[in-house]
Structure formats: C-alpha cells, structure tokens
C-alpha cells in the first residue's frame, strides 16, 4: 500500500508535516521528486516499527510492575533502575534460546504460524495516527484496513495449532480462532457507529471530527455503549485475561503456544503485546479524541497570542499530540492490566454467549440508535 498524502480538510491547523519538509529539503539538495520520496518511504515505517517494539517493552515492564503492585510485591528490581531493563533481558533470553521444532510437527507450518500472527498486527500500525500528518499512511479505508487485517490472525493461530501436532495446541488454536471471529463482529459494528458519525473510514478524519471542543467533543460521550463494546471486544481479540481461554493453563497447558520455544514463542508474545498497545491506541483514536488535548491546542495558542502556524508552535503541538495519544493508550493498557488481576477467566460457553447473545444485539441496537440520532440531530452526531 503506497502512502498517498491526502489533502486534509482545512478546518483544523495543518500541523507538522515531516514528509513535506524532508522532501523539500532533499529536493533542495538536487534530488528528483521520486527519489526523495523513495528515500522518505522507509523512514516512518522503521520509526513506527521501533515505536511498536519499544511500546511492547514498556508494556511488558508495566505489566510486571503493576501486577507486582496489585499483589503487594516489588516486581523486577535489579535489571536497571526499577527493573526497567527486565523486558530487554527477557527478549534477549528468548532470542538466544534453542529453537525447538517437535519431531512429529509440521516444520513449515510450525514456522509460518507465528509469522502470520505477528505480521498483520504490525501492518495495522499503518493507520495509527499520532498527529495530523504523523502516520505512515492516511489510507482512505483506514479503520476498515485494521479490521480486515486482524481477521488474518486466526489463520496463523489455526496453523500453529495444527502444525504443533498436539491436542492442546489444536484445541487452543481452534478456541482462539472461534473467539477471534465471534468478537470481530460486535467490534466492527461498534466501529461502524463511529464511522457513521464521522462520515469517513480514515482514522485522521475520525480524530479531526472530535477536535471541535476539546474533551467535550470526544466520541466517548456520544458512544459510551460503543466504547464499552469496543473495549471488551478488543480485550477478547488480544486474548487478555478475562478472555484468555486459548491459553488457559489449567485446561490447555498454554494453548497454541504449548510447543513453541525461543524466538517463535517470542513472536507470539510480541504479537499479543503489540496487539494490546494497538487496540489501546485505536480506542484512544476512535473514542478519546486521538492526539487531541482536553483543551483544544488552537485555543491555547490563541490565548497565548501565538500564531498556530509558527514553526515552534507546530513542533510543540505535534509533541503534545504524540504524548496525548500515547498517554491515553497507556491509561487503557493500565486499565487492562488492572482488569487482569480483578476478573476471573470466563468459560468458553460464557465467552461465546457474551459475544453472540449480548454484545452483538447491543452493538446492533447501538448502531441503529446512532443512525436515528444522526438523522434527528445532525449537528451533534455528524450530519
């Protein structure tokens, strides 16, 4: 998917456009437009990949520290200050561990499975915006791309479950796929309600539609039910604790991960944590105003008497935007970790009941109500 710089609607400040400045700088050095673009292309991808991996490291550290605090322990402490290097040590350990492929397993599918789980998750970072122009690609299908990419994941899970040649793995894989499919539907319906209000699938447009009046214009006030549905479904998609049956230790050893070791296991691990961060980021984009500050930055700049287009103001605005996006996302991650130590795991029939008999009808009703409200009050619900 080639990035296509769209002309964004002019009702908000254009914000920092790194691509334009970088390209014009390269062109001033005498390079052709196409070459400048080719040099630019990999940079944001690498940046976002690094950001995703660092986000996972932070996430793992937070998970361990918060879990420890909830259980009145200390948690990792000796690897770096406050154990901040512990995730790195974990990763290094997994990296140098022996890569075991069971003798009766299907080697090719066994290797391909974790890759198929990880790649769609990383690809989905394509549409996560950190600012008006601070995303890899403002593709028109935006959030729909994420939904369709996350539907590839069950194939990887089934593949690794099948290839392990282990009954627990197969059961875990089947459960993971069933769970993933059943929670995708309410998730998509919740997203659809948002899309209906913002008249666009693009994540940037969805955030822009929420920037009118700071915190008051965030979608969470207009879509509280949708927010809850989305968050429950996102937890189920990430196999976080109330819904971590595919890896239920008591029944399935470790589900589809049972036979995995070393770097292949690390891929699963990485995938699940990147998925959690991604889901949290998307919740903040869809419901919590994305990069928007609770008080609109334009108002603040006006109040301080600064022109919004000044370079320094632009840099500050962009930084505030990135910080706000990440902050909101990590607040949600914190909530997910807290939830992990609060609620017990559900049974498989309870899980499917919740998905099909509760979330799906509620999501449908939510969609219908949103459509009705949009027709009745086009001012408040995006005409």
């Amino acid at each position: 998917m080639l990035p296509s710089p769209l002309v964004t609607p002019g009702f908000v400040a254009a914000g920092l456009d790194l691509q334009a400045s970088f390209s014009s700088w390269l062109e001033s050095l005498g390079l052709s437009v196409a070459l400048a673009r080719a040099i630019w292309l990999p940079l944001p991808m690498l940046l976002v990949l690094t950001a995703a991996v660092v986000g996972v490291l932070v996430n793992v550290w937070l998970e361990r520290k918060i879990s420890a605090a909830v259980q009145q322990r200390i948690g990792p402490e000796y690897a770096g200050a406050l154990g901040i290097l512990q995730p790195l040590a974990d990763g290094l350990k997994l990296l140098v561990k022996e890569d075991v492929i069971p003798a009766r397993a299907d080697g090719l599918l066994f290797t391909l499975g974790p890759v198929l789980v990880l790649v769609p998750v990383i690809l989905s970072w394509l549409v996560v915006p950190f600012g008006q122009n601070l995303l890899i690609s403002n593709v028109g299908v935006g959030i729909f791309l994420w939904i369709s990419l996350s539907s590839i994941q069950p194939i990887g899970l089934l593949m690794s479950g099948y290839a392990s040649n282990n009954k627990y793995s197969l059961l875990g894989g089947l459960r993971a796929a069933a769970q993933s499919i059943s929670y995708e539907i309410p998730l998509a319906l919740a997203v659809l309600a948002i899309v209906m209000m913002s008249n666009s699938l693009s994540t940037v447009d969805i955030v822009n539609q929420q920037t009118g009046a700071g915190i008051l214009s965030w979608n969470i006030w207009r879509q509280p039910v949708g927010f809850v549905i989305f968050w429950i479904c996102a937890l189920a998609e990430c196999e976080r604790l109330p819904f971590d049956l595919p890896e239920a230790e008591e029944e399935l050893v470790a589900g589809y991960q049972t036979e995995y070791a070393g770097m292949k296991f690390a891929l699963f691990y990485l995938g699940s944590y990147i998925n959690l961060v991604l889901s949290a980021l998307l919740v903040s984009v869809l419901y919590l105003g994305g990069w928007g500050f609770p008080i609109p930055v334009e108002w603040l700049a006006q109040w301080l008497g600064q022109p919004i287009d000044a370079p320094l103001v632009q840099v500050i605005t962009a930084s505030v935007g990135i910080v706000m996006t990440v902050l909101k996302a990590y607040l949600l991650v914190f909530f997910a970790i807290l939830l992990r130590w609060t609620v017990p795991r559900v049974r498989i029939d309870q899980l499917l009941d919740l998905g099909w008999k509760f979330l799906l009808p509620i999501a449908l009703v939510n969609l219908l109500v949103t459509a009705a409200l949009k027709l009745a009050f086009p001012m408040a619900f995006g005409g």
Partner: protein
Amino acid sequence: MTIATTTEQICFLILAATIVLGSLGVVLLSNIVYSAFLLGGVFLAVAGIYLLLNASFVAAAQVLVYVGAVNVLILFAIMLVNKKESLSAIPSLLLRRVLSGAVCLGLFTLLLRVAFTTAWPLPGPQPIGEEATLRIGEHFFSDYLLPFELASVLLLMAMIGAIVLARRDVYASDVITGEPADQGLIEKARTPLLINRSETSTTL
C-alpha cells in the same frame, strides 16, 4: 520508466506468480490442510492485485470476507473432522482425471478467448482511489439494490437453515402436563431432565 512503475510491475509479477502457483497447489496437493492454507494465500494475493489496481476498499473487503471468514471456515471444517485416512482407490480414476482435466482445459480456453477477444479500453478509466468506498455505497443503494438485497436474502436463508440444522429436536411444551417447557433447561443438557420426568410420570 520511473521507480513507481517498476515497483508496481515487480509487485504484479510476484502476486501473479503467487496466484498461479498457489492455485495449482490448492488443486494438486494431496494434503487437504495444505490446500486450505494455500487457498488463504491465493486470496491474499488477489487482495494484493486489487491494491495494485487502486481499489483498497475491495482489497480490504476481500481479505475480511475471503481470508477472515471463508478460509477460516474451511479450516475449521477440516480440523474438526481431521481424519487421517488416505484416499481409497476409486475405480477408473485415470478416466475421471482425464475427463475433469478436459473440462478444466475447456473452461480455460473459453476464458482465454474472452480475454483476447474483448476490446479492453487501454488505458482504462481513471481510478477514483479513495472515493471508491462512497461510489460503491451509492451503487449498492441505487442501481444495484436488487442484487444486493437478493444476496442478503440468500445469506439470511443460509443462516436460518444453519440454525434449523444445528437446533436439537426438543419439545416446546411438556409432553404430559402440556405446560411450556423451560427453554434454558432444553438448551443446556440434552434434555435428560424432561425425558426422565415424562418417563417416570408414565410409569407412575
């Protein structure tokens, strides 16, 4: 030749090769699980071709529907009835193969003929890119409304049929007393409670 067109051509070649080889694998491999996974790969490659044609919405829909739903369903079916049995020798297998090969070849020549005789407008119409989503929606609710609704009715029929097939035969009311039976009970166990109750009451 610019960088963009070269990249596009390379991508097209890779995707086309994936589709052709993958679909051959789907048909020719003896391991049905491999065939199913390869089918997923072929669907993904087709989505890639749509992307090259600037139809990102169609590509995403292709991934969602074919990879995420159809292929997963096929895999589920295969894995739930994963019997390790080799194909038994079918009488006159060679004849069958030759016949089906001939049919396939005939279809292929037909397709080739269509492809070569149609006057393709070159270059094609300007791709509308991001506006495609809007345009598709408009078409669905105006001139393609009937096929769209027919497809949804078909899906509804399939869904009701699946529910009818999956639903166990249970009594809506108690056989003896005639009062409505507890739906929750019926759905839970395979109704040993109800059947036992009727049996004991008849013996009494």
